């Protein structure tokens, strides 16, 4: 009897069905892996941006309030300042200057330049703060020439603005979380803490 040597029609149908099912599963897996990879890359970028945002906020909030020490200047495209002594990125650097810059305006970068005691550049780092932006704006809130405080596009005063604001719309149309920072607030708080080391009882 030779009929037992191969598959029956029903078995063949079942095998073909299973093969089709596996093909769909594997095809879906490839698509899933591609999407997962894209999403993971986007999340990784976002996590790096989170670290940079934390760094920038810390540097600005710990900036010295003295103009000669902070050398703060702000324009619609960039602002820069000197990091306070306690926050130097590397101990060898005598002066470390941070700069936040909007480029063309699709990218925002955070740059760090450090000079040693001879004035030679020993730190030169640049990181993408945000990319693929639709629009981005910088603004500075404070008092100029004894007028009531308001938002300005430029800040070249001998005192710090009370607030710095970074706003942007991302390429997908979503807003970037607005970044509003009080310069020197942590620096001033640390002085208050040193003067009044314990809370009132």
């Amino acid at each position: 009897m030779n009929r037992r040597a191969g598959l029956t029609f029903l078995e063949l149908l079942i095998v073909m069905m299973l093969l089709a099912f596996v093909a769909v599963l594997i095809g879906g897996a490839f698509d899933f892996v591609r999407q997962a990879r894209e999403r993971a890359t986007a999340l990784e970028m976002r996590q790096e941006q989170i670290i940079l945002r934390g760094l920038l906020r810390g540097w600005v909030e710990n900036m010295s309030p003295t103009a000669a020490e902070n050398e703060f200047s702000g324009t619609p495209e960039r602002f820069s300042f000197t990091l306070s002594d306690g926050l130097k990125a590397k101990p060898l650097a005598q002066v470390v200057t941070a700069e936040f810059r909007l480029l063309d305006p699709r990218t925002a970068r955070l740059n760090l330049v450090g000079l040693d005691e001879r004035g030679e550049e020993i730190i030169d780092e640049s990181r993408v703060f945000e990319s693929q932006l639709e629009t981005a704006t910088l603004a500075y809130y404070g008092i100029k020439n004894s007028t009531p405080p308001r938002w300005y596009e430029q800040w070249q005063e001998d005192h710090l603005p009370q607030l710095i604001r970074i706003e942007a719309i991302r390429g997908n149309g979503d807003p970037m979380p607005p970044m509003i920072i009080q310069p020197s607030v942590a620096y001033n708080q640390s002085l208050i803490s040193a003067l009044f080391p314990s809370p009132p009882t």
Partner: protein
Amino acid sequence: MIDTRKSGFTLLEMMISFVILTIAITGIYKAISSGLFQSGQRVAQYEATEVAISLISEFEVIRPAMPTDGKIGNKWHWTARMGAYLPIETFPPGIRFNQLTVEVFRGNEAEPTVAMSRIMPAEVQNEP
């Protein structure tokens, strides 16, 4: 006569192996999806926190001119409220503190993604 049916997998064995394969692949899908979802949630949580910190900074400086709620694009909306910080009786007479609470919601969600508070001296409150 050689019994050829014993030389390979039976249909039942193949079906069982497919079922096992399906379960394994589904498990891997779920693990990856869940990891990505949780990472996405953490990033969203951080971004909402950043919005709240920025609003608190703005309130501390220009509170009288600030509204008590608002929207940031269609991605977030927020509310802010100022109240006396309790328990007041623990402070010496004449010293009072207020508590500013900012809640940030994602999209049209009713539950806040982040709620943050800051205690500040009452004289800074500068209520209109």
